[in-house]
């Protein structure tokens, strides 16, 4: 007989584990990954592989040889960061830039704070913003021309492609948000812009627009969201409060002057808003823990995103907004939950 095992209650566990949560997030990211590979071919795969491998390797090396501890890569969190970083980069990112991103994400944004659970900012977003500032040319080059086999050589079902039955010009090189930002600044109106550029919501849904790999297909992100909700990995509070805030904010502007401001649906479907809302803002470590904190966090992200998009210098603001609100999380975590006994109701 083995000796009796002794421990305080409870003696059962839900079988939930950090590893299982991370695995669920990876599964939820798969639709976006597949869509990006489908549209951009091997070059997307290259970015993904380099990013994941880079993140895992960086974490392993730092933990093993710098901190001299047992490696922590088996909790799969480095893979999640790697995938998120890749989905936040353009398909045409050179491999060395992706690697720098990995080192920044894991080495600076995650491990310097103490690793999993201790980082203040979302590692993938820190890396993205770092790259955006350091390599503005590469980071805003949305072409897929260096793809090894381009999807326009494949026989694609017509519905997925543009109205003309062909892919958007591989060298167009600007996201829808970038186009309207520049266009509006040059005195054009929304109507002329949309006539010139054919912003089809169908394209946005299926991922047929220019932009970073993961922000492209809204449907893939929604599929991931459904999976995460179904597995109870995340609660819908943060994504909902972000989306509602953005919709309200842009809706009011759009009603004031439809010729100068894009409509709410346009804002929701473009620029990685949903990617950020579903996968980045809901990161456990860098989001608040109480429901009220989550709502404030979501509203904050929505507001900052819209302010940057409409009045800021960058066409896109989700990354900055999330990082900005990340910094407020310790403060938001000070919010105490409503106590158990609000009032004793006597009948």
């Amino acid at each position, binding site marked *: *007989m083995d000796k009796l*095992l002794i421990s305080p209650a409870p*003696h059962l566990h839900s079988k939930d584990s950090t590893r299982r949560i991370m695995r669920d997030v990876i599964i939820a990211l798969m639709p976006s990954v597949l869509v990006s590979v489908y549209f951009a071919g091997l070059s997307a795969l290259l970015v993904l592989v380099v990013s994941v491998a880079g993140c895992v390797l960086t974490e392993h090396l730092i933990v093993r040889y710098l901190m001299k501890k047992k490696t922590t890569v088996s909790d799969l969190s480095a893979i999640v960061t790697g995938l998120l970083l890749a989905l936040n980069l353009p398909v045409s990112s050179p491999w060395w830039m992706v690697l720098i991103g990995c080192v920044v994400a894991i080495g600076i944004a995650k491990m310097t704070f103490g690793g999993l659970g201790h980082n203040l900012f979302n590692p993938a977003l820190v890396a993205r913003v770092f790259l955006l500032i350091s390599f503005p040319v590469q980071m805003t080059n949305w072409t897929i021309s260096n793809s090894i086999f381009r999807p326009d050589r494949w026989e694609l079902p017509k519905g997925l492609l543009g109205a003309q039955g062909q892919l958007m010009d591989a060298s167009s090189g600007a996201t829808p948000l970038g186009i309207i930002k520049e266009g509006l600044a040059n005195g054009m109106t929304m109507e002329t812009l949309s006539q010139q550029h054919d912003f089809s919501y169908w394209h946005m849904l299926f991922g047929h627009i220019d932009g970073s790999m993961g922000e492209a297909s809204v449907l893939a992100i929604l599929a991931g969201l459904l999976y995460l909700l179904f597995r109870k990995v995340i609660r819908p509070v943060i994504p909902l409060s972000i989306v509602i805030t953005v919709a309200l904010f842009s809706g009011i502007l759009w009603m004031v002057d439809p010729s100068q401001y894009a409509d709410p649906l346009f804002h929701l479907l473009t620029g990685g808003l949903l990617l950020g809302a579903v996968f980045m803002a809901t990161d456990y470590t860098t989001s608040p823990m109480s429901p009220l904190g989550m709502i404030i966090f979501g509203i904050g992200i929505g507001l900052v995103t819209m302010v940057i998009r409409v009045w800021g210098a960058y066409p896109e603001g989700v990354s900055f907004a999330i990082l900005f609100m990340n910094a407020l999380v310790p403060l938001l975590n000070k919010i105490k939950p409503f106590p158990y006994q609000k009032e004793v109701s006597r009948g």
Partner: protein
Amino acid sequence: MSKTFSIGGIHPKDSKFSKDKPIEEFPVPKRVVISMNQHLGMPAVPVVKKGDTVKVGQLIAEPAGFVSAPVHASVSGTVADVAPYPDFLGKKVLSVVIDTAGDEWLETIDRTHEIKHEITATPQEIFKIISDSGIVGLGGAAFPTHVKLTPLEGMKAEYLILNGAECEPYLTSDYRLMTEHAQEILIGGEMMRRVLGDVAGIIGIEENKPKAIEIMKKLTSNYLQWEVVPLKKRYPQGGEKQLIDAVLGRKVPSFSLPISTGAVVQNVGTAYAVYEAVQKRKPLITNVLTISSSDPSIQKNYRFRVGTPIREFLSAAGAMDKEGNLSRAFAKVVNGGPMMGKPVSNLDGPVMKSTSGFVLFTSKETKRQEPGECIRCSKCFQACPMRLQPYLLYQLALAGRTEELDENRVFDCIECGCCLYSCPAHIPLLDQIRLAKNVSLKNKRKK
């Protein structure tokens, strides 16, 4: 629509494997060790000495104050020793040891199985019998029942809730009682209801026990003051505060007894004990326990005598090998349910009045995993039925910051274990919080 409590909670697999096994009478053991500390409050004071002969049901220890309970002999024979003996946790407790000789009961005890419906005793008499029979809460905490039935200054009971939730996985002793002795439970409940001054009676039963709900509903149709409330399956529904919230929608304030919401909660097992004490003159010397495990051959319900060594139940259920050790497959024996029960470290320790069962686990089922880093998923917060922030309390407890622990209401913790159960990083949250809570309560009492 079934009711449930409003905050937190978890849904562990209910694993009620032994629910269709009828209650078996467990043989009288050769020797019993009867602890003087089977209830909350002051330990009882022995009134017998070494060499005395006692009969079943005879008083062997008197209560040491109001919040205390008497203890009675569960077997007949000679008192072998009155000394500290290790309990199931290896802690030494003053106990009376009796060597069994025959099975001679006190003449006053009615040993027939005939149900005595008519309640002839007055509420005052019932109260007296309850406190003289050593009846304690059989839901787990073993709080002396007569204390709970004594109204506090300025508070009036409006409801008596019989707790048939049995939300702990594996345990089925309450369920078996409700299906086999529903009538007796109801009579016992009716008597307590009268003691409290004709309050409304409610029986709360979780939905995973449809047969018990059905039987109770049928019986209560004869009693106007009684109502059966089906509850959704959810842990910790059987917690006193959660049950009051589920049934009445009222929340018990910190540091207050449930009576402040006008409700008194009693376990169905307690109601059965009250019936036996008043109608049959039998003090609390037997109770029902469940022996359960994932092994289908070790799933039983027994009626036991208080003081029987735990080892005997395990060998009778077939969980012991020839050398008298636990069978190889099992690594842990839990006294009570798996969520709140305590581990057994001394298999020779005796069972108590309020023992509700033993659950056997293999190492694989129960061994704790290596704790990881907190990823701030807030699952513990979502699971906590008292709306505490377990992750925060854990950190504060480790740092020993007592004032901040109080500010964050560590004293409200009911030790249900939901936080540790749901933590994906396997952090031993409750271990530290429980300690901190005890310190906090001790400080409060000093003031």
